[in-house]
Each structure stands twice: as structure tokens, then as C-alpha cells.
């Protein structure tokens, strides 16, 4: 429990640092709300007046503190470009990206564990070699290209979905799932390849350990030894990978939504960057950082549950 609290404290401090750096960076970059709303041909006096009105001339720390307290309360400021609250813009689209990332993650976990174990169990045989080759190919193809391939194969050849089309989950849930599943597969495939490779190697390594021989001596068959004894130990490096992957998938969904023409957070991010709509960009960046850090926090906790030795080490170090 002490370990969890400590971890929580460092997580919060990290978040604070990131928010500060992001805010600082956008303060240093030229261009602000006054310029954005008035355009480049406004007179300096007019710009100065608007700055005063928006409170942009106050000291940096004061503005940062204001922005931060707003952020914590869920008020991310007002978009320069559209003049609507940033939280409204983001929160209407965020579920799409979260659903995509989580679905991709579930696909990855569901596929890679059995395939990795199967591959380790049949090490050196034909199927295993095939899996290795397919893995290698999938790992070296970036997910957006995978997305283009999937669109071509399933959209244009098999005509399972219309490329560029999208159905909102509010109008048709079935159609929504159909249009979401392919981008999710595109995000998941390279990650599946990575975790299969890692799990296979780690299973093979664990299978040579002494406790495996003990497990056999009790009358376990190979499947039971693999699933009941080896898997849990072999999962440790994979969990680390998955922790990084979930955050990666949120970012991946931003890219892949362009390929599949899904109205998610990525589109907002791109337009905001080109219009220098800083409050929006800041909010999205800090939100992504939040997801990454919270995921890492969860991974640390899960890691400790899976491997009881970790907490013992940590405790003895902290004494």
C-alpha cells in the first residue's frame, strides 16, 4: 500500500511537470490568441488592447496557475478559432479514440497470448517458423500502411465496408462496430507481432527453468505446465510492453483515423495545430500524457500483483 501511494505521488508530480513544460512551450512559440483572432494585418495597438482584455499580459506563472486550476476542474479554456470551450470539442470526440485504443488492445492481448504460447510449444516446427516470418513482416510495416492495405483489401476488393465512410454509434451500433473494427485491427497488428515475439522468447526461456521440471514431475501435461506455470512468469516482460503499447495505441488511433476518415481527436489536433489554436493543442497533449502516465502507473501495480517478488524488493530498498 505504501508503495502504491508513493507511486501515486510521483505520478502526480510527473503530470505537473509535463503540464508546466507544455504550457511554457506554447508561451514561448510566437503567436497568441490576440493574433489568431485578429489576423496578421491588425494594428499593434488593437492587438495590445485585445491582449489586455484576454489577460495575456499578466505574468506567466499567474496565467499558468489559472490554466492549471481550470484544467483540473475540466475547463480547458476557449478555442481561439471556434470560440467554444475546448472541453466540449475534445470530449465529444475522445470516446472514439478511447474505444479504438481499448478495442485494439483487447484484440492484441486476445490474439498474442495463445499464438505466442502455441509458437513456443511448437518451437522449430513448420507452424512456428511461419509465425516468425509473418511476425517479422507485420512488425516492419507501420500501422498506417497496414490501414491502407486493409482498406484496399477489405474495402475495395471484398467491399465489406465503404472506404472513407463512417457510422456514428448513436445512429447504428452494428455499423459503428463494422467501421471501427478494421482500424483497430490495423493498430493492433504490429503490436500483436511484437508481443508474440516477446512472449514466445520469454516462454522458451522460462520453460528451461527448474520449476518447470518440478511441474512435470507432478504429472502435469505440457499445456497445463505452459498455462499454469510458465505463462505467468513469461508475461512479465510482455506486461511492460503492453503498458507502453496502450499509450501508443491512443496516439496510433490519431494517425489511423486519418487513413480511415474517422472523426476523432486527431482531426481536431491537426486543424488546431495549423490554426495555432493553442488551448486545444495544449489540452490534447496534456490529456495524452495523462493517459500514458496513468497507464504506466497501472502497469507498475499489475506487475507487482503478477510477480510477488517485486514488492518484496521495493520494500527492502525503501527501508
Amino acid at each position, binding site marked *: 500500500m505504501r508503495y502504491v501511494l508513493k507511486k501515486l505521488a510521483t505520478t502526480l508530480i510527473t503530470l505537473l511537470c509535463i503540464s508546466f513544460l507544455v504550457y511554457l512551450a506554447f508561451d514561448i512559440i510566437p503567436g497568441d490568441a490576440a493574433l489568431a483572432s485578429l489576423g496578421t494585418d491588425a494594428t499593434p495597438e488593437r492587438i495590445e488592447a485585445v491582449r489586455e482584455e484576454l489577460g495575456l499580459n499578466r505574468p506567466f506563472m499567474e496565467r499558468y496557475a489559472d490554466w492549471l486550476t481550470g484544467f483540473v476542474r475540466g475547463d480547458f479554456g476557449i478555442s481561439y478559432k471556434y470560440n467554444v470551450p475546448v472541453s466540449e470539442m475534445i470530449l465529444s470526440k475522445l470516446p472514439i479514440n478511447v474505444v479504438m485504443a481499448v478495442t485494439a488492445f483487447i484484440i492484441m492481448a486476445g490474439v498474442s497470448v495463445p499464438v505466442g504460447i502455441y509458437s513456443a510449444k511448437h518451437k522449430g516446427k513448420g507452424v512456428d517458423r511461419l509465425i516468425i516470418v509473418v511476425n517479422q513482416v507485420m512488425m516492419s510495416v507501420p500501422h498506417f500502411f497496414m490501414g491502407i492495405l486493409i482498406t484496399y483489401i477489405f474495402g475495395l476488393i471484398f467491399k465489406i465496408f465503404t472506404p472513407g465512410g463512417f457510422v456514428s454509434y448513436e445512429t447504428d451500433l452494428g455499423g459503428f462496430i463494422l467501421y471501427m473494427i478494421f482500424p483497430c485491427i490495423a493498430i493492433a497488428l504490429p503490436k500483436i507481432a511484437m508481443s508474440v515475439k516477446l512472449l514466445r522468447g520469454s516462454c522458451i526461456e522460462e520453460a528451461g527453468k527448474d520449476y518447470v521440471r518440478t511441474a512435470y*514431475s507432478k*504429472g502435469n501435461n505440457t499445456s497445463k505446465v505452459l498455462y499454469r506455470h510458465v505463462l505467468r*512468469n513469461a508475461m512479465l516482460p510482455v506486461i511492460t510492453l503492453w503498458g507502453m503499447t496502450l499509450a501508443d495505441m491512443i496516439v496510433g488511433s490519431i494517425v489511423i483515423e486519418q487513413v480511415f476518415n474517422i472523426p476523432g481527436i486527431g482531426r481536431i489536433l491537426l486543424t488546431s495545430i495549423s490554426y495555432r489554436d493553442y488551448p486545444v493543442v495544449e489540452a490534447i497533449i496534456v490529456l495524452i500524457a495523462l493517459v500514458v502516465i496513468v497507464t504506466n502507473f497501472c502497469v507498475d501495480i499489475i506487475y507487482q500483483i503478477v510477480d*510477488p517478488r517485486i514488492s518484496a524488493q521495493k520494500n527492502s530498498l525503501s527501508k
Partner: protein
Amino acid sequence: MLEVKNLNIEFHDHDAPEHIVRNINMTLKYGEILGIVGESGSGKSMTAMAIAGLLRRHDVTTSGEIIFDKKELLSAKRSELRKIQGNDIGVIFQEPMTSLNPTKRIGWQVEESLKIHKPEIGKAERYKLVIESLKNVELDNPELIYKKYPHELSGGMRQRVMIAAAMICAPKLLIADEPTTALDVTIQLQIVKLLQRLNREQKTSILFISHDLSLVKSICGRILVMHDGEEVEEGVADEIFNNPRQEYTRELINAIPKLEKPKL
């Protein structure tokens, strides 16, 4: 109960096939403790693993017969072998530090054989048997140890847990492959005494493998001395010790460090 006839073991996962064990014969009666002694590389552990059915079949070729309880094990189907492993034959190994699964609780690991071989036993009854088994290997606070992980126990305690796990189905044969080599001398003695007591009370036959001749002599009725995969001699422990017929055995006996009074 156990009869090994002309056992040959050959490894072929290297460049050239290696003959690890040649023409080993032995018999083990009910309730007996037989020791196999030899230096490392003498094939004693391989012989034990062959009897336990733990050699990977596609890395080795074996010939001869291992007859356990009227069943021939070398040619038995794997599924048949698994019914015997953990149920009629229990095994404990040299390394108690690594022979337990680090991510599973002690109770789970001790009761595993029961779950496999006697699924008809209910949860409450199983818990009682595990606690009894932990008590039987002289572990204090079995209820507490039930919930512990291996890294929370000392080497000696882990070896006791291994014994408890191997003995939970009351096997007819316990194979102890260098069970005390990795332990302190004082704990070695405790484990040996524990094995002797289990042998006396539960009539479990023990196949005790060790490189330590004096240890083997203190626990075993009969001894088989092995060297380079072959049998050197076999017989009653005291006789071999007092009156070795072979040069190699004599060398082994002379290699035992003796406690002598320092000369003044």
C-alpha cells in the same frame, strides 16, 4: 517394486551421440532406501530422471527396462506416465531455490498433485491435507506458510515444501536428486532425518542420489556406486564402506574429509 534392467541412456542433441548411462541394473524393494553415489557426470542424476520419466524423449534414446509396480515405464505412453508421476512417484531436486514456481503461493504448489490425481477430493478436505503435509515435514505455522511465496522462505524451508509437495499423494517411491547439496550442513542433517522418518512411518521407498558418500552411508541400506555412466559396485552400505571391492570406491571413501585431532 522398482527394477531397472540394462538401462542405457544416450543423448543426441550434440554433434555426436553421447552415451551417458551404460547397462545399469538395480532393484528397490518396498520401504527400502537405495543410494546412488558418484561424482558429477557419472550419470546418476540421468538414471534418476529416467526413472522419474523426466527425460525429454526426443533428445535421448533409452534402452533397457524400468519396471515400476509391474509397469514398464520407458515404453509407457506419456499419458500413462503422467498418471504415475506425482501420484506414485514423487521427486525432489537439488535446487530448492529455483525448483518452486516464484509466482505461485506455497499452498497452491503443494496441493497441485492432489488436484491432478485426486480431483474427487473437495476444497476443504484438500486444504486439510496440505496443512497436514506441511506439518509432517516439520514446518511451523503451516497455515501461514500456505499463503507465502517461495521467496519468503529459506532454502531449508523450501526443500521441506518440495518434500511436502512430493509426498502429498503418498507416493510409493520418492526420488531425491541431491536434495541436500545446496543446503547448509546443519540443515542437510535435518532433511536427511526427515527423509528417514518419512521412510519409516509411511513406508515410502526412497532413491537417494548424492555425491556425498558419508551422507549416503548414514541414510541408505544399500548403495550403488556409479562412475562414467557405469556401475562400479553395488551392495549393503556398511559392507561397501568397510570393505570396498573396487579401487574407485576406495578412492571415493578416501576423498571424504576426516576430522582429525590437530598434531601438536
